[in-house]
């Protein structure tokens, strides 16, 4: 099997960012909790590869710590989406046409009417802002994405003769979903999971930008951008670096997702919204 180029470049970018996040647990070039106001807004140099921000903090270190937040939030949100969405989708497909199927579908549509930002607003209004809220808000929105995708793919699999053969063998719908349907969905789920992960990174950045996500002193790329907003004309690097990091990370993940799809099964269609 030829490995697509997009997969290689995408994987490399994604791994670079992940490496940065992991390394930050043991070491960062500077400690971001130490402020050095005198050395603020320095341009990139040998001492600070990406420069310093308005509090004198090393931007590279902030980026590495921020990577932790983004990856953790996006990953957990995808986890929630899959853990709840996939079983719902399988269940709905196994009981197609029934009231349960209708209810699950309507439920999906309903959640789609609440963009993750709106959910985050609701949660924050009542519980206050935090990274956990971001995870829950993005995760809740992921559930119908996976449910709808799973249900659609499962429905077409239920029509196949090999499922009929399993029914003739007396297997229950639950067993069929587990033995026959789910294994044939893994390719689709891997690719969609990668895409949702990249969307999660964007969503987390947006939420932290407006202050509804991780709160200080937890670093996050979105908030770096919020802080940099008024300084854009004075010290552009403070705004450019976090933004470019987000772009490269999301780009890397998307390329990886496309590459995975080409590798695993070029015929599967992904939902991108």
């Amino acid at each position, binding site marked *: 099997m030829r490995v697509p180029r997009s997969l290689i470049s995408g994987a490399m970018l994604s791994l670079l960012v992940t490496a940065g996040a992991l390394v930050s647990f043991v070491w960062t070039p500077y400690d971001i909790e130490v402020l050095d106001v005198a050395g603020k807004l320095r341009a990139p140099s040998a001492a600070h590869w990406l420069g310093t921000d308005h509090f004198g903090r090393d931007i590279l270190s902030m980026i590495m710590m921020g990577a932790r937040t983004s990856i953790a939030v996006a990953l957990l949100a995808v986890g929630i989406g899959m853990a709840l969405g996939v079983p719902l989708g399988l269940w709905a497909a196994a009981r197609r046409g029934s009231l349960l199927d209708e209810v699950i579908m309507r439920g999906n549509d309903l959640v789609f009417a609440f963009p993750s*930002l709106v959910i985050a*607003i609701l949660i924050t209004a009542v519980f206050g802002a935090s990274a956990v809220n971001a995870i829950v808000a993005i995760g809740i929105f992921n559930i119908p994405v996976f449910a709808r995708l799973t249900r659609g793919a499962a429905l077409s699999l239920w029509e196949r003769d090999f499922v009929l053969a399993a029914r003739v063998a007396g297997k229950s719908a639950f067993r069929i979903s587990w033995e026959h349907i789910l294994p044939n969905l893994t390719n689709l789920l891997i690719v969609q999971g990668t895409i949702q992960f990249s969307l999660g990174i964007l969503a987390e950045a947006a939420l932290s930008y407006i202050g509804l996500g991780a709160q200080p002193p937890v670093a996050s790329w979105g908030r770096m951008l919020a802080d940099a907003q008024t300084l854009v004309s004075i010290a552009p690097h403070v705004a450019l670096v976090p933004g470019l990091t987000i772009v490269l990370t*999301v780009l890397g993940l*998307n390329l990886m997702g496309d590459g995975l799809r080409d590798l695993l099964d070029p015929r599967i269609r992904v939902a991108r919204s």
Partner: protein
Amino acid sequence: MIRYVLARFASLILSLIVASLVIFTVIEIIPGDPAAFMLGVNARPDTIAALRTEMGLDASVPARYLSWVTGMVQGDFGQSYTYRTPVAGMIADRVWVSLPLAVYALILSTLIAFPAGIYAASRRGRPGDMAVMGATQLGVAIPNFWFAMLLVLVFAINLRWFSAGGFPGWDRGVWGGVKALTLPAIALALPQAAILARVMRSSLLDMLGEDFVRTARAKGLSRRQALWRHALRNAMIPVLTIIGLQFSFLLAGGIIIEQVFFLPGLGRLIFQAISARDLIVVESVVMLLVFAVIVVNFAVDLAYALVDPRLRVKG
């Protein structure tokens, strides 16, 4: 057809009801005592009691829900605790910034995405297609608020073609308002256009591989004629779904973009309300946003029936 419309309408009403129940539960039930929540830990008991009476919190839960819903239907969204003015009035002012922004962005997004997607599909595999795919791959990865900052840097601060923020109001002429909304709309539209272009392209490519396009070619239609007259209309069907979904993202994204451009829209209202713990305002704005999305989806469903005759017969 009538049956289809009625069924969709019933679905619309049901969605609105359930959505309102969810919002009501989160805002008024979960915090326990909304009045105490809004006033904070240090409030005196008699202040809390007064607010409770004012908000009608002593009534039963179903009664409170019903009075909220009937109020909204009549245009009464209650009174903001922080500002002591009717919420409806506050929302009305802001909506006239947020809604035009979303519509403007939707129009821009469609205007960019459709030609790009069609062009890419018709040049599949060739440099033109690669270029579009590359550009969209990048566009999808850009956070819209960061792009907004870049736009401000280039067009407002350096080139001075636009102001860096603010909104002059519609009463001083439509053009002034549109100009103020242009950079924000572009920032919102571009990432969405990238997504839409990809969907358009892949939907069209799917259609181009269908049997009926081959039949059209066998009749003597050129590749281009087959694309425009046969493939395109069929390709619109999935694209319509995406446009409907995009509207909700544009509304939500608009709220974020407003921060970059200091626009007096629903975004600012909601964030102030959150910090001030003004639950009534939050409740109303969220309900309004969800309402807009559900209505737009209904419109998309109707559009389906126009485009796809198979839906009209099933009823």
